[in-house]
């Protein structure tokens, strides 16, 4: 392997990106390599985009602790992130991009293909089939190994065993299945980077801040589009809905409002897809459907 391989994981809070990075580092270290895993430290919120990192080398000590800006490998756990986050940002030419997507390899390639190897697997389906829940991190480890050979597939299983206990067997199965199903496309010569422009956050200089770091904009949190954290959203069956409003009462985001017809509807801009409304709906009118 190269002297140093740098990896960036993109996922959402709760999908296990941080766990994946940890398991990969444990595996690499067991193989006798030098490795490091760390999350992008910050407030943890289920569903919000998160980043985790790995550095792996054959035997060279790893000292850098800063976030990885120019990764050799990028792994995307959530297909919904492709539209909102510049996942390929800084990805080296000749690197590898591993994406969880239900779409065809060629379709993903037309969206996010570039001067890198592209690997695609429908990890969400595999996880739903095998784990009975859409937690894709162990499947994506299998896809990563298939696309890069960064560690041996078998080496992953012991750390998975220790980490997941009674759930280990199904996770190993998901990992194997994803390894088998992952499709890979080598970069075409002269391939260009995607042209989509993502908004770049503009931070103020110290001179632009108010005295005492006072925030004068009232209700500035309303601008946070928490709605894009979700992987599922609530769908209402009007036949069953009795307009009782229990869903709105229990919504932790307080984003469910009564419509003119009397039904209760979640505001897509804020709904994080937690599913509490569906759980509380005692007539079974609300079900969670994948976005």
């Amino acid at each position, binding site marked *: 392997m190269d002297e140093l391989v740098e990896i960036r994981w993109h996922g959402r809070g709760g999908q296990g990106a941080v766990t994946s990075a940890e398991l990969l580092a444990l595996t690499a270290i067991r193989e006798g390599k030098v490795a490091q895993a760390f999350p992008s430290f*910050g407030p943890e919120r289920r569903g919000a985009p998160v980043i985790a990192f790995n550095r792996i080398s054959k035997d060279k000590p790893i000292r850098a602790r800063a976030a990885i800006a120019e990764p050799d490998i990028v792994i995307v756990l959530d297909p919904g992130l492709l539209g909102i986050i510049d996942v390929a940002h800084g990805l080296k030419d000749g690197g590898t991009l591993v994406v969880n997507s239900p779409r065809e390899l060629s379709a993903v390639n037309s969206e996010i293909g570039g001067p890198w190897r592209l690997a695609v697997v429908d990890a969400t389906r595999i996880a739903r089939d095998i784990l009975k829940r859409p937690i894709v991190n162990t499947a994506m480890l299998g896809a990563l190994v298939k696309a890069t050979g960064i560690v041996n597939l078998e080496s992953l299983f012991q750390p998975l065993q220790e980490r997941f206990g009674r759930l280990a067997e199904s996770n190993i199965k998901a990992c194997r299945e994803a390894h088998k199903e992952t499709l890979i496309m080598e970069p075409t010569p002269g391939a260009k980077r995607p042209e989509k422009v993502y908004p770049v*956050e503009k*931070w*103020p*200089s*110290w*001179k632009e*801040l*108010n*005295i*005492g*770091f*006072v*925030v*004068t904009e*009232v209700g500035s949190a309303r601008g946070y589009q928490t709605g894009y954290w979700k992987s599922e959203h609530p769908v209402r069956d009007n036949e069953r809905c009795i307009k009782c409003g229990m869903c709105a009462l229990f919504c932790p985001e307080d984003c469910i409002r009564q419509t003119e017809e009397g039904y209760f509807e979640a505001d897509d801009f804020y709904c994080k897809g937690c599913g509490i409304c569906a759980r509380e709906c005692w007539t079974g009118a609300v079900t969670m459907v994948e976005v």
Partner: protein
Amino acid sequence: MGRRVAFESSCAIAEAAKMANIDVCAAYPITPQTHIVERIAQLIADGELDANYMPVESEHSALSGCLGSSAAGARTFIATAGQGLELMHEVVYVASGMRLPIVMAVCNRALSVPLSIWGDHSDAMAVRDTGWIQIFAENAQQAFDLTLCAFRIAEDPAVLLPTMLHIDGFHLSHVIEPVLLPEQEEVNEFLPRYHHPFVLDPKSPVTMGDFATPALYTEAKVGQDVALRNSLKVILQVFQEFGERFGRDYSPVETYKTEGAEVLLLTMGSFSEVAMEAIDRVRGAGEKVGLVRLRLWRPFPFEQFRQVVNQARLLIVLDRALSFGGPGPVCSEVQAALYHLRQRPQVVGFIGGLGGRDISVEGFQDMVHRGINKAKQGKLGEIEVFDVREQ
């Protein structure tokens, strides 16, 4: 034209708070500061001062309460000492980060353990890096004058930083001296009502003390640091205006008989006046020795300090605090201030006056001579604790 009264420094500060027409005072009693807030409580109870007095259950709560009143735009005063200042420590940072012009009198007291109610500068040094302006007074008159200056400096629109006025526990707090009091109108003219650009007001809500990710924290703190550094200009202006109005002049670095001095002694606080007596004696014996009194500890007045000391051959620094395992904090700062100068005095540091230990006039004479001898012997890096029993 005012009147001459007998006050201990504690009462002089309480009187200054009254004449500054404070709106709020919160405090938890602690020796040797208790007289200040007792006196303020009395003034409010007697109807001489129209202010809210917040009795609280701890110093942490006292300063937290002051955050609220100052954030609402009230002129806010607080006093504490030693352990009390330590207990409020985290809130001390919050007050400066929020840029609230609270004025706090600190009756410098040694820190436990062993428990000591007596004075030294350990408490003042422990809050050195909290972002407050720190001013030292040397007598009761200065304690009065500089309390008024502290409000004026803190509330200046170009400053908006909390300010500590340090008086030495017991050596100042409990010593009765003559004090000249100005007329109330004179104080009103010097210290008009102030307006903070951001105040807590339900009609115009703001968020204070917000959270910052790594992308913003540095910028927020740099803004605060620049404000503290720039406050020096305002401090100079305020001292000048005070001198013009009241006839008593103050400066960030003050001197005594430094003309032509080859050796300088540096002190802070009430011991400076004792040291002046010693300087008189050694000058009388024909020795070219002068005294530098550091009035402003934060922001450190680098330029003024360098100008005062750069012609001297030797600078003897007294620290009334230990920085365990390192040089005294004042000595350390002074050496850093001089390091890049082409022409600079040698520096000898002493630690002394810990936990209320007196240094007499003769003691300061001795310190000067010991300092000169140590420099002659090349023992510049040695940190000597003055008047410690070795056997």
